[in-house]
């Protein structure tokens, strides 16, 4: 096991009160495995990612829980080890490549910064490795692009450069936080292909974070579905896509447009809106939007229960079935 997250709770302490962005999330990730983390905007996906690297910006912080990476407790690491973990253990790909690259420096300089920091290369070795890496990312004319500034590159190129930076320290786990959201469809496909290729080459595990269940299903071996800071369903991709157990997952699947099926069925959305995290409904936080909800759902928070091999679901109505 590469990464294990146990009962993670992360909160932001705002003037209005404590906002529990992540509320008791547990999952595991094996070497070389691809896991998708799916949910609507604001459900806490990104905060899970940042928690794993202990990078939550103030006023937020991890309140409770345990994160083990290769058997080491991330939350109790001394700063130098934590810095090694960031970059050399776990690489992070950001959602907005334009914002995550420093506009003042060339791509090459930002990439060699990681190489010199984590792989101890000297200036010249780093320069050569930079060009090689950019080439591996499928960037044409890597020598020239290495001396380009971020604003001289297209969105897709910037994302490739950012992925290069994330994998430059040879991490064992790559966390991709909405890596394709800022890109158009054809470029999305290329970036996913690149990630799959890199995973095969470097035997990395990938934690793929997205709101796009369809896209995650293409890449991931397993999928975790998050709602209001909690994981509501965890299943192998094929099972989840064909027979979702949780009503929320079911709703997400129904909301994916089906092309070329011939049936011009209208899209079905999930009724209602994501509740305010500062004012969650009692019991199962999904109950106001759920067609199966009854008195029990309003009263108590359902725990995760096993519904098959490696298949767990947090629902009173379908979980036990």
């Amino acid at each position: 096991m590469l990464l294990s997250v146990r009962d993670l709770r992360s909160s932001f302490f705002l003037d209005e009160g404590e906002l529990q962005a992540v509320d008791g999330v547990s999952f595991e990730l094996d070497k070389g495995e691809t896991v998708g983390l799916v949910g609507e905007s604001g459900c806490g996906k990104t905060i899970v990612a940042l928690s794993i690297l202990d990078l939550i910006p103030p006023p937020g912080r991890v309140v409770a829980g345990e994160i083990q990476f290769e058997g080491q407790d991330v939350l109790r690491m001394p700063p130098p080890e934590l810095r090694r973990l960031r970059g050399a253990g776990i690489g992070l790909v950001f959602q907005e490549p334009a914002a995550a690259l420093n506009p003042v420096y060339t791509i090459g300089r930002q990439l060699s910064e990681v190489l010199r920091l984590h792989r101890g290369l000297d200036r010249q070795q780093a320069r050569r490795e930079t060009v090689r890496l950019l080439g591996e990312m499928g960037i044409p004319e890597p020598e020239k692009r290495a001396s380009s500034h971020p604003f001289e590159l297209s969105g897709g190129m910037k994302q490739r450069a950012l992925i290069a930076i994330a994998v430059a320290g040879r991490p064992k786990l790559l966390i991709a936080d909405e890596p394709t959201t800022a890109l158009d469809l054809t470029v999305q496909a290329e970036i996913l292909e690149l990630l799959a290729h890199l995973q095969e080459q470097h035997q990395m595990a990938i934690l793929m974070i997205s709101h796009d269940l369809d896209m995650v299903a293409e890449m991931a071996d397993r999928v975790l579905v998050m709602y209001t800071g909690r994981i509501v369903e965890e299943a192998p991709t094929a099972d989840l896509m064909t027979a979702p157990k949780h009503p929320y997952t079911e709703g997400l699947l129904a909301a994916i447009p089906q092309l070329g099926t011939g049936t011009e069925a209208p899209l079905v959305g999930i009724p209602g809106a994501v509740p305010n995290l500062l004012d969650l409904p009692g019991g199962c936080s999904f109950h106001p939007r759920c067609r199966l909800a009854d008195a029990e759902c309003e009263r108590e928070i359902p725990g995760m229960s096993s519904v098959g091999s490696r298949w767990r679901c947090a629902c009173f109505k379908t979980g036990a079935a």
Partner: protein
Amino acid sequence: MANARSDTRNILRRAWLPGLGHWALGHRGRGIRLLLFTVTILAVLLWRWDLFVTGFLAPFWDRRLASLSLVALLASAVALSRWDVKRLLSEEGEAQIHRSPMRVALRRFKENRLAVWAVYIIVALYLVAALAPLLAPFDPAAIPDVQSNRYLAPSWTHPCGTDEFGRDLFSRALYGARVSLSIGLLAMIIAKTIGTTYGATAAYFGGAVDNVLMRIVDIWIAFPTFYLMLMLVGIFEANITVLVLILGLTSWPGTARFIRGEILSLKEQEFTEAARAIGLPAHLIIFRHLIPSALSPVLVTAALSVAGMIGAEAGLSFLGLGIRPPTPSWGNMVAAGQDNLLHAWWIAFFPGSLLAITLISFSLLADGLRDAFDPKALMQKFV
């Protein structure tokens, strides 16, 4: 024929004399400027050869420094020009020239002719200051036969006239330039270095650290700076080092506040988080990623700050609290001329004019820098 021409071009490119290579590559303006610069320095070298040589052996630091500056200036002119020719040659083959934000700003700056002239004037003033012992026709402190030499109006022998002791004011103004300009530059560097580091540290760590550091700044700013300087000058014997330290150490809090504001907004940007995510330690994030991004407004205030420091030094010296005569500084020269304003106007006029020209040049430079770095103007250039 064409061959012969390209041969000469190739030879010129490799020439050691700065400017020839640029000329051959078609950068006429830059070539002429470089050549003029070099020829001027060579002329000084030949004209004052004996002073230059003895300068190295002289027991006085100011003369040794002048000779060393001359060598350094020549060497850097040659090195810079050869490096630039190399760069231009490598760019000739390359279709696309990378536009770094700095280079875009530089190009915008060059379009501002007033600011470019200000730079020429400032460079000329600093050159003159560095080479003062080689350029001055007289010893600035030597008092000749006072009766026959004092209060001489400007003439060919004494371009700026002489003062009440018969000292040559042109030489004194040259030496005064060393004092005034070096104090301005050094004090600015001290103030900006401390202010930038301090403000960036406060902003990056935030919370309690920020609170404590900025309250110290508040207290510091609450002291009226000029009176603080007056007090410090009263305590310590005023010489160049002490003045540099006093001016530098009293004027950093403004920069600290300013930089803190810049960094507070920069650190919320995703590239800071990205820098943390690759495991960069805090000091490298501050010095490599945050400060360079906040540096362009600091450059603008730096130019203004040099002017402010020179003005403050002149003010202190004018009041008799700064550099003490016989060491000349523009400030104490103006003060000396004050008593003789009606019958010997030149004593105060020349150092006063130099002071004014210097301050105006730095202001124009700051204006040019501000326009060149204006992010909105920068965007228009890209769109």
